[in-house]
C-alpha cells in the first residue's frame, strides 16, 4: 500500500478516526466475548459442568 493511499489528503481528519472507531469497536467485541467465554467456562468446569455438556 502506498503512503499516498494512506495520506487521504484534507479528509484524513475524518477518515482515520472512523477507522480507529471501527477498530476499537471490534477490539471491545472480541475482548469482551473471549473474556466472558473463558470466565464462564472455567466456572462451569470447576463446578463439574463440563461432563454434562
Amino acid at each position, binding site marked *: 500500500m502506498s503512503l499516498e493511499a494512506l495520506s487521504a489528503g484534507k479528509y484524513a481528519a*475524518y477518515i482515520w478516526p*472512523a477507522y480507529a472507531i471501527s477498530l476499537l469497536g471490534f477490539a471491545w467485541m472480541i475482548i469482551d466475548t473471549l473474556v466472558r467465554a473463558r470466565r464462564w467456562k472455567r466456572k462451569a468446569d470447576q463446578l463439574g459442568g463440563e461432563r454434562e455438556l
Partner: protein
Amino acid sequence: MFSALANPARFMAFSRWAAPILGVIAAGLIGGGLWLGLNAPPDYQQGETVKIMFIHVPAAWVAMLAYACLGGASFISLVFRHALADAAAKAVAPLGAAFTGVALVTGSLWGRPMWGAWWVWGDARLVSVLVLFLLFLGYMALRASIDDEAKGARAAEILALVGLINLPIIKYSVEWWNTLHQGESIMRAGGSALAPVYLTPLLLVGAGYGAAFGALWLERIRAEVWRRRATSLALRAALA
C-alpha cells in the same frame, strides 16, 4: 440444520470449531477488502472520503442483520420456550449495539465533510438507525432491570419483536422521505450504482463483517450456555 443445533450439546460441539473458523475467514475477508478499498482511487464526487464507506456500510448492514437475529431468536424463545434461542437473543444484543454504534459514529464522520453537518435530526435514515441503537440498549436494560431472569427475558423479547418494525423503516427511509442520506445504491433494481473498484472491496468487507459477527455471536452463546450451567450447578450445590 437449525433444529439439530437446537440441542445445546450439539450446538456446543458445532460452535467449538465453527466460531474460530469464521473468525479466520472474517480476518481474511476484512484484510483483503480493506487492502483493495484503501488503494481504490478517490471518488469523483466524494473524493477520499469514499474510504469511510468500506467500514460504515458493512457496520450498518450487520447492525440490521443483528436486529433481525434478535427478533428471530426472541420469537422462537417466546413461542417455543427454547432456552438456547433465549441465550442467542441475549448474546446478540451487545454485538448489535456495538455495530450500530460504529455505523452511527462513522456515518457522522462521513457526513461532516459531505453534508457540512455531524448529525441531522430531520433525516429519517439517521434517526431510524439511532432508534435501532436505542432498541438494542433498551433490550439489554430491560433484561437487566428485572430480577426474575425468565420474566426479564420475556419482557425484553416482546420489546425486540415490536422493534422489528424499525427494520423496513430503516431500509426504505431513503425512498419514503427526502433525506440527506444517499439513496439505495447497491441492492436496487437495475443493479448496483457503484463502480466495481468500490463494490468489490465493499462486498468483501461486508462478508468479513458478517463472518466476524457470526464468530462472535457463536462464542457469546457458548459463554451464555456456560453461565447458565455454572449458575444451575452452583444452585444445586447450595441446595444439596
